[in-house]
């Protein structure tokens, strides 16, 4: 009987699973923001961040009667300490961005220059892809965002139109990412055999080190469509971010692929969103993704050895993209 009563009590208690709640005032919203990040953000230890100390520092800056915009600025400054381009605080009047992952570095990309001096405003476009055969008989493909779709038929046609070229340049500079499933769609066109493309893990609880075992995921070659199994050079800059960063990390592991340009911008954590009592939303990195060698690329992917190249501003004035020229020199038939 006692067991039955205990069971019944537990059953009733089950109806009361606790959900954290915060007051909808300055302090309550600050605590909500700090706690959501504390329990879900995935790079505290990787980045050596003391989130308690950061919270204490910024909690001292809030005042009960401060304006919403002032409060937003304090919260944004706190989030900037995560040094993560995937972290945004969204309010009705502003969205916070951490920009230093690209703003402190040369841009190393000028699409107008390439269109004018290399493509002569005469190239084929479809979805987010643009391509042309350069005068050195090198294929050039520009992919500006993984948010832009790539039709399988368009990819087939593109590779067939470039079939006389011994090498291909894929320019993902300024590609800020998008849909990660398109990374697989594109990478699978360069595979001869299945590859371990990386691993992903997730938080298993609110502790900073509560992570699951990394789960290895595999990409298969796209055998029913046209594939490119010749040399490839991938062009990168600091604004190559998120899904584009993952694309570069996987491509770098393939034979016949060279990465040229600057280190990518990183953005290795799969983002997650949550909400504050005042109605603002916050986005943050929640699930780390490892590259094929088992490393995190939150700080970016380095170019291949000997292929770290910047755009020369003086040459750019003369219509030269020194990163693109370097790539062409690697691929052009001698």
């Amino acid at each position: 009987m006692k067991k039955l009563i205990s069971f019944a009590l537990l059953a009733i208690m089950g109806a009361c699973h606790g959900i954290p709640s915060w007051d909808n005032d300055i302090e309550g919203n600050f605590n909500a923001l700090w706690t959501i990040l504390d329990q879900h953000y995935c790079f505290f230890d990787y980045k050596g961040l003391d989130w308690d100390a950061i919270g204490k520092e910024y909690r001292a800056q809030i005042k009960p009667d401060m304006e919403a915009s002032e409060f937003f600025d304090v919260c944004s400054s706190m989030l900037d300490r995560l040094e993560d381009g995937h972290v945004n605080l969204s309010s009705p009047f502003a969205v916070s961005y951490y920009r230093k992952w690209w703003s402190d570095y040369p841009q190393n990309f000028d699409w107008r220059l390439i269109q004018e001096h290399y493509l002569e405003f005469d190239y084929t476009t479809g979805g987010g892809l643009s391509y042309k055969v350069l005068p050195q008989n090198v294929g050039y493909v520009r992919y500006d965002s993984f948010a832009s779709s790539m039709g399988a038929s368009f990819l087939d046609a593109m590779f067939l139109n470039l079939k006389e070229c011994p090498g291909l340049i894929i320019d993902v500079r300024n590609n800020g990412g998008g849909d990660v499933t398109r990374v697989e769609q594109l990478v699978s066109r360069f595979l001869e055999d299945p590859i371990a493309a990386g691993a992903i893990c997730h938080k298993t609880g609110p502790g900073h080190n509560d992570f699951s075992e990394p789960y290895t995921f595999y990409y298969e070659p796209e055998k029913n469509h046209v594939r490119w199994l010749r040399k490839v050079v991938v062009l990168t800059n600091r604004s190559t971010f998120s899904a584009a960063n993952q694309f570069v990390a996987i491509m770098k592991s393939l034979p016949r692929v060279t990465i040229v340009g600057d280190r990518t911008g990183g953005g290795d954590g799969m983002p997650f969103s949550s909400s504050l009592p005042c109605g603002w939303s916050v986005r943050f990195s929640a699930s780390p993704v490892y590259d094929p060698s088992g490393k995190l690329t939150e700080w970016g992917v380095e170019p291949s050895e000997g292929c770290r190249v910047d755009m020369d501003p003086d040459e750019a004035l003369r219509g030269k993209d020194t990163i693109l020229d370097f790539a062409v020199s690697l691929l052009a038939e001698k």
Partner: protein
Amino acid sequence: MCRISALISVCLGLLCSLSLTAQKSEDPVRPIYSAYMVEAGSSHVAETYLSPLHYDGWTVGLSHRRAQAMRFDPENWLMELGGRVHVDRTLARPARNVVEWRLALELDWAMMHKWLLTKGLTLYAGGFTRADAGVFYLSRNGNNPAAAKASWTIGPRAGLGYAIRIGKLPLAFRYFVDMPLTGIFFSPAYGELYYEIYLGNRSGLVRGAWPGNFFRIDNTITADMRFNSTILRVGYASRVFSSKASDIVTRVVSHSFIFGVAQEWQAVNGSHSTTEARRIISAY
């Protein structure tokens, strides 16, 4: 000897035939009590995978229930089959600036014993099994906009029925309560993205359910007013649900008014004459 054998065979044949006829005439009619209902009311929702906030709003649904006395002991046992689809539209509390949607579909089957306690008052008790699937959707969460739900559970169901007549109007009040005790349900881990599941990591997604981590109690009270062959139903349903897995809490509390029509009907079976005099045993 052959003649005696033939006579015995004819007698046995006649006896069997008479016995079958008697059994057939005793086989009662078990009409199906079928109801179609619209439900509308308030909904309180929280799904911490998407947001730690609570959401309030409305819920609307369509449901169908059918009941029938069971063949093996129609006087004492009945079964119910039900299906319900509903949509909840809720706003974040207190900001009320973002909408969370919920769509759910559920099917259940129950078998209950009934006891006539006094004239007009019937007690029902038995068990049920329920399968449900649904999704919460918060459009502004770019990378985690949805949380899928699915479960299969079993548990007890009990009820009381009271039939009276007001003037010439037959009225039947019924109250049912059910609560799943065990089963299985789907839940990702604490911070697990559906993208990881898409990549193939499907371990640990199915959890064992018990009232400590999967609590649900449904209370329904209806009043059926019989106008000739048509029955009008009004009622109220209260549903409380709370689950917790990997520190993800899901809570849904709804209160709905029920409006519906019901009919009691019998499928015409070729083995019976429609003019045959037979007992009729209603489900309730």
